[in-house]
């Protein structure tokens, strides 16, 4: 009998193998959707099941949340991708052969991310995360334009260095665990490490955390480790941008948080809070400023992702039940909203045949529905009600102010600067007289609308079950 946690990993991997063998991009696309749906079902199954701790896998309130979001967004992205890539074939940007590869890689990436999430072993988690990263490297370079190759190359190098540093950190964690837990697998097992953290050497843990922070922080997109992120988002296929922003960053953050939990277990160790607060703020404010000079719509929203990852890292750095709760909520909301923004941007790029802001004007005249959806998504990410991002930002800012009033000015400043840029670009794209071509949009709007509905619903009402989950996860974070 297969377990749910096995299913979320094995279903995508199996699908990857099958899809690699399936000719015909339509069949591949459908297969991709079915496989993602199956993974999503497995994710739901996992969510309903009891927490389990095995020697290789762990399922607790904390990662179940991530798996659920991961599989959900994976599913909707597959849906979006199925309707989107037809257009890429038509315009000749991709050939059917590449699509076969694309679909297989998509599933492999989903499987790797799920692996990183459910792994109860720091090495396995590292493997999953790095595998997912390397696959996205390949996906980013899929169009094989000079820009795409440049972006992929940059991503590859920075990610490789990150991989190495994270591995070094992993070794250090093992070294810290080994005198306590003994040699072998147990010293790499999450659940055991965490339980015995208090007996580990604090200086070694400090060292490990710093390497892990830089290593995984590269994937989270924290400034100044972010450089790969905007270009990778801008040059890759739009579904991949959605998955990058919506999921991969989360998984990396998840890894970081796991280690933060470990650090919290040893009071004598460095408090990761202040470091995370600083890095989060640097990312948040830096990305907010970077928004102003962007000319490419996808790169723009990539920077917005850096901004929001910064905010989350800030919130987790603040710690405490409210801030952690808010951080987790923000993560969920950001995943849904940002991926829906990338869906919308994909539509826009199809409609206007360009990603450049200067050539996107007056969408509310030429494509009213698309403009409304884009506007709602952007306003949602800007933290306006009635969307869920408002809820999380409300909690983060109020609780920060209540605890450290002067510190609260900084994230507020960053958010305001970013808000100015978001609104400016939004107004420029949807208002005014339209310019340039106005093509028909082929891609399905269902995923985008679905995400927006979820974010809207979260802004209005958080189901108690979800709240309990978030709360337990927040407690685990300490």
């Amino acid at each position, binding site marked *: 009998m297969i377990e749910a946690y096995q299913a979320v990993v094995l279903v995508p991997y199996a699908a990857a193998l099958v899809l690699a063998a399936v000719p015909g991009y339509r069949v591949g696309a459908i297969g991709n959707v079915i496989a993602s749906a199956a993974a999503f079902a497995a994710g739901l199954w996992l969510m309903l099941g009891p927490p389990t701790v095995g020697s290789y896998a762990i399922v607790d309130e904390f990662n179940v949340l991530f798996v659920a979001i991961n599989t959900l967004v994976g599913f909707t992205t597959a849906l979006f991708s199925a309707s989107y890539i037809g257009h890429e074939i038509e315009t000749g940007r991709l050939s059917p052969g590449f699509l076969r590869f694309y679909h297989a890689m998509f599933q492999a990436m989903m499987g790797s991310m799920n692996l990183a999430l459910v792994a109860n072993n720091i*090495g396995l988690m590292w*493997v999953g995360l*790095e595998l997912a990263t*390397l696959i996205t490297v390949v996906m980013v370079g899929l169009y094989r334009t*000079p*820009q795409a*190759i*440049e*972006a992929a*190359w940059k991503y*590859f*190098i920075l990610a*490789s*260095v990150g*991989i*190495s*540093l994270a*591995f*070094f950190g992993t*070794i250090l964690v*093992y*070294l*810290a*665990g*080994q*005198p306590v837990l*003994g*040699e*072998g*697998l147990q*010293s*790499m097992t999450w659940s055991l490490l965490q339980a015995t953290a208090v007996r*580990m*050497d604090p*200086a*070694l843990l*400090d*060292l490990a955390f710093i390497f892990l922070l830089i290593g995984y922080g590269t994937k989270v997109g924290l400034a100044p480790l972010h450089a790969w992120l*905007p*270009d990778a988002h*801008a*040059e890759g296929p739009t579904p991949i941008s959605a998955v990058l922003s919506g999921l991969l960053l989360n998984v990396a953050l998840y890894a970081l948080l796991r280690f933060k939990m470990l650090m919290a277990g040893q009071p004598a160790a460095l408090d990761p809070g202040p470091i995370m607060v600083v890095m989060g703020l640097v990312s948040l404010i830096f990305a907010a400023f970077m928004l102003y*000079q*962007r*000319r*490419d719509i996808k*790169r723009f929203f990539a920077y917005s992702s850096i901004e929001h990852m910064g905010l989350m890292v800030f919130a987790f750095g603040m710690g405490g039940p409210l801030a952690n709760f808010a951080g987790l909520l923000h993560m969920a909301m950001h995943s849904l909203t940002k991926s829906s923004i990338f869906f919308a941007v994909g539509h826009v790029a199809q409609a206007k045949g360009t990603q*450049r802001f200067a050539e996107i004007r007056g969408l509310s005249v030429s494509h009213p529905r698309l403009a409304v959806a884009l506007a709602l998504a952007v306003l949602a990410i800007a933290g306006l009600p009635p969307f869920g991002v408002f809820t999380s930002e409300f909690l983060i800012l109020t609780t920060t102010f209540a605890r450290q009033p002067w510190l609260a000015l900084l994230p507020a400043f960053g958010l305001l600067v970013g808000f100015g840029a978001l609104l400016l670009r939004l107004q420029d794209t949807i208002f005014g007289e339209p310019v340039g071509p106005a093509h028909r949009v082929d891609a399905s709007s269902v995923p985008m609308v679905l995400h927006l509905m979820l974010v809207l619903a979260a802004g209005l009402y958080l189901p108690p079950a979800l709240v309990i989950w978030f709360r337990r996860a927040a407690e685990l974070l300490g």
Partner: protein
Amino acid sequence: MKLAYEISHLLAGVMLVVSFALLYQQRIAAVLNAFAAQSITLALAVAWAAWSEDRPDLFITATIAFLLKGIVIPVALHRTVTRLGVHREVEKVVGVGMALLVGLALCGLSQALVVKIAPVAAGLARDELALAMAIVLLGFLMMIVRRNAVTQVVGFMSMENGLILAATGAQGMPLVVEVSVAFSVLIALFVFAVFVFRIRERFDTIDIEALDRMRGDRR
């Protein structure tokens, strides 16, 4: 046990010295030779660990290090460099003296960090950890003080040598072999990419035209 430790310590020390040599070398050919020397030393260290601690699977890692990083890659890179005609001086960002000073500081930093660890707390001797960390940091330093793509690849591989050293030193750490294999694949990709995408001697592009063409968001 004492002797076993002394030998592994010696080998690690040699690797660190070679790391400095890597920083010091001016010509690409010399850099590649130094790297080959470091990789072979690593192979010896890993083999010694495999033998002395009776972990035969580590011989695989040692073999890979020896064959791939000690022979195949240096030779391949030699050829490439000759073919592309960039085997002369390597363009450096900071002077050799400066680079060595920074390297020394990094060694000091790793020593300072390791000293704080209680002697019995780690599954690896503290000074060996310090050596491995220094090698990793020096590899990273090498990546950023040279403008040449080949030397940067070498820097990355040197970093990875440090990682493998630490991983083999960590007693009883699982998955070391698998990871070393994975890293080798990564390095192969690296080298492959240098060939295929013609990212010739520089990936530190300072050519404005190239920037305009390649980097997004300039338009």
